[in-house]
């Protein structure tokens, strides 16, 4: 059996003393309102939308009319508002407090971006309108492309990928197509992926039909160059490297890595999830990168929205530009064309990644973000993100145990050594943070660090906010060390719910409501 990772408790221990749990008659508690499922409160005859009279007509449905009930619950408008406002109050959010999820980049979402994305020239245009009627939208896509290429120094950009992982797939498919063009797609099968990589990297390489070869980290948390040298060879298609990496560290040898891969005839795919730490400080072109996706929802602050939508445009080097997927944008003076058809294309697109042209709503927001910051502001974003992370690293090191020596980039990584013999795990520590009013950090990732705690404050936290956060974590670390285990293993007790039984959810899945 391969012990990929050790388990952690996923079912709460039986709690005998739920002392904090004040029982009320209504089930609500002060501002926290009890709210059942839509399907328990809605009715089949209730409706929150008015309609004009519906004219009679001879049905053209060819006998395929639905003759049964769908079962959809409805509510009037005030009831809908109340239902979802109540539910919203059970969520933590950036607008409520520091959200230190490492590798997720939870930064402030400017509301200007929400305003401009709703302008009708972006929000209310159809993807298949005549291109002559959507020149403003195409020009906007052109501007986004310009910014992304200027920030990275790369030669081309594919805008259509719908999220980071979709972008990874786009970049790796460009590499696959280039190998096909070289007649080497059957001989270059191996993709090198560091052990610390985000799971999307190996999953993407596999989706493109490549074999994955894992690269171990050295003692400094970076690619082990000695191992890399032994693994490079004529059967290597590419290396997929996150930089700064998932340990929050800049890969110092990145230029040498690029040279090694290139000399061996392979390509360098860079996972751009952490571009927010280096934009304006270096350009990925100068690091030797051939393809990199950019998570607009991380670096350029399009809202995470409880899990998407994202957008993952991919920048490409000259060697890969021709293989970018359909559709792509072409400028002719002031006029823009979207090339949608392989037959019209002068390039060698590897295919089409989805219907239509990508996440327009994310392009608008990201461009507003980039323009608001400008070249000077984007550089300042990277500097402040790195400064904030290092400040936390310095403050927290008083009680917590950094995983690696030296400075970090935009996120600070700790292991669970400081909890040794306390009976408190990374999970317990994280849950205690909830009681303190904070969202936990990313935990148990990257896999290469035991009990990992990855903290990314982002540049939009003030020094006062960081100080309060650090004081809280230091106090918690001290409490754990002083034997106050109870505080941790029962946590959270002040959240809308206590720990949830994930074992039960997975053993007997209930994935939808059903009438009794």
């Amino acid at each position, binding site marked *: 059996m391969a012990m990929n990772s050790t388990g952690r408790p996923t079912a709460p221990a039986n709690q005998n003393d739920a002392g904090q749990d004040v029982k009320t008659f209504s089930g609500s508690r002060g501002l926290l309102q009890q709210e059942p499922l839509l399907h328990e409160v809605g009715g089949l005859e209730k409706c929150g939308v008015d309609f004009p009279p519906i004219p009679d007509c001879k049905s053209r449905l060819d006998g395929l009319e639905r003759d049964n009930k769908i079962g959809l619950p409805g509510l009037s408008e005030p009831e809908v508002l109340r239902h979802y406002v109540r539910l919203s109050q059970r969520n933590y959010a950036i607008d409520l407090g520091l959200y230190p999820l490492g590798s997720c980049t939870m930064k402030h979402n400017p509301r200007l971006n*929400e305003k401009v994305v709703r302008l009708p020239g972006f929000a209310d245009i159809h993807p298949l309108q005549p291109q002559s009627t959507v020149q403003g939208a195409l020009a906007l896509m052109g501007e986004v492309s310009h910014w992304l290429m200027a920030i990275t120094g790369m030669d081309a950009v594919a805008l259509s990928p719908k999220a980071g992982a979709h972008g990874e797939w786009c970049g790796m498919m460009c590499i696959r197509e280039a190998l096909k063009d070289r007649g080497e797609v059957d001989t270059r099968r191996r993709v090198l992926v560091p052990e610390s990589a985000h799971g999307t990297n190996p999953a993407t390489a596999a989706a493109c039909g490549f074999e994955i070869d894992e690269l171990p980290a050295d003692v400094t948390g970076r690619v082990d160059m000695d191992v890399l040298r032994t693994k490079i060879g004529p059967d290597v298609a590419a290396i997929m490297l996150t930089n700064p990496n998932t340990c929050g560290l800049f890969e110092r040898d990145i230029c040498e890595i690029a040279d090694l891969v290139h000399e061996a005839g392979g390509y360098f795919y860079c996972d751009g999830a952490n571009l927010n730490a280096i934009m304006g400080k270096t350009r990925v072109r100068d690091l030797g990168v051939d393809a990199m996706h950019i998570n607009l929802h991380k670096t350029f602050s399009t809202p995470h929205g409880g899990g998407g939508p994202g957008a993952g445009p991919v920048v490409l080097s000259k060697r890969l530009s021709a293989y970018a997927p359909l559709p792509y944008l072409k400028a002719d003076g002031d006029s823009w064309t979207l090339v949608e058809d392989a037959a019209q294309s002068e390039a060698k697109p590897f295919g089409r990644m989805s219907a239509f042209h990508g996440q327009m709503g994310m392009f608008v927001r990201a461009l507003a973000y980039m323009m608001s910051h400008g070249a000077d502001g984007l550089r300042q974003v990277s500097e402040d993100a790195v400064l904030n992370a290092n400040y936390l690293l310095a403050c927290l090191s008083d009680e917590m145990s950094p995983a690696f020596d030296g400075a970090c980039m935009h996120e600070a990584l700790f292991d669970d050594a400081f909890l040794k013999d306390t009976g408190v795990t990374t999970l317990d520590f994280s849950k205690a943070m909830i009681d303190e009013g904070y969202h936990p950090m990313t935990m148990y990732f990257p896999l290469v660090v035991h009990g990992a705690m990855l903290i990314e404050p982002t540049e939009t936290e003030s020094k006062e906010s960081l100080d309060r956060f650090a004081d809280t974590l230091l106090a918690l670390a001290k409490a754990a060390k002083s034997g106050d285990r109870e505080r941790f293993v029962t946590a959270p007790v002040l959240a809308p719910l206590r720990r949830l039984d994930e074992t039960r959810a997975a053993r007997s899945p209930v994935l*939808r409501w059903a009438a009794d």
Partner: protein
Amino acid sequence: MRYLPLNEDDRAAMLARIGVSSIDDLFADIPAKARLDGLLENLPEHATEMAVERHFTALSGRSLNAGEAPFFCGGGAYRHHVPASVDHLIQRSEFLTAYTPYQPEIAQGTLQTLFEFQTQVAQLTGMDVANASLYDGSTATAEAVRMAGRITRRGKCVLAPGLHPQYAQTVQTALQGQTMRVQALDPAMGADAKMVEALDEDTACIVVQNPNVFGELVDLEPLSKAAHEAGALLIAVVTEVVSLGLIKSPGEMGADIVAAEGQSIGNGLSFGGPYVGLFACRNDRKFIRQAPGRFAGQTVDADGKPGYVLTLSTREQHIRREKATSNICTNSGLCTLAFTIHLALLGELGFRKLAKLNHARACALADRLNALDGVEVLNTSFFNEFTVRVSGDATEIVEAMAKKSVLGGIPAARLFGAGKFDDLLLISVTETTLDTDFDALETALQEVL
């Protein structure tokens, strides 16, 4: 910079606490030859909120938006009225600025909504279970095909003659580098029933769109029967979910997996994205374990109170890595929320009325257009979109109408490429299309034909 809270005093104090003399000490790992000393080239410096807004308003004004023109475009993206309360609710900070619900104790808002969404999608499609969404309808279709390959361990998928061409291309692209191959039947209007001829013992699935890309309705039942007899799965694709308020659900007609575009409910046109991929399947352990994307599931907390968590995650890339069922990570969270809220406002009653209204409006326009010289409605059946043959090149006709500020549908050549269906025009009608729009289209067509 209005978004950056640190000032120079803060920065100096923080550098001192860290123990370095300048910010560049923290960037020392960047190789010297790759360091950027000045500002990025060819980019302006920061801009005020007012300046940015002005720029976007000008750009927005350079397009002809659907609200300012008689509008008849569909083809996989539909313009429906979205109630104001939907947009208000999805902009609440707690929904808008939350991450994926990995800490369930403080993410019940998102998780409960996803559970409601999954239930609604399962009900609409007539399937047992649904996931928490994928990117859009086209990528959901590609995921469904790959899933069918894993379940059946067979090597061929057959694409219907009436499948949206961009969906077909998405599937073909997704299977590059995979062992599965695609047999795409030649696009044709009333030919979906012919798919049974392509079934063989290596067929993993047949992929059928209903209503199909020409707007024609397809009876899935005989197809599902034939597929099942051949040991293959039926994947039903729906690009206009409002149709499910009036026509039989794919589940009722025997579909094994449903991949649909959910944009019509709660989400605007937005030039093609972000949209929301609906994904539903049978409640079979084999199916669920091979499904892509996230699932929210019901459970209880330590006090026994009901709650929700993300579950069955071992299928996903963050645990299974290269053996994951898909590389997807982010889905369409906020778009699912908009979908769920809009559908909650509609309910059974409203949703069925909406579908009925769409159909009635489309029937009315079809009759009017069919009476025009040089226009012939080709469909024998349709929901809210149909295909007409025009006497002339449909692309040129649509361009000429656009010059008169009428967005008069989608030339089939835009989807299929030039040369095959040059005189076909797809016309979509929804509750937002008024009689005055019908008049304008009629006039414009008569003028340009």
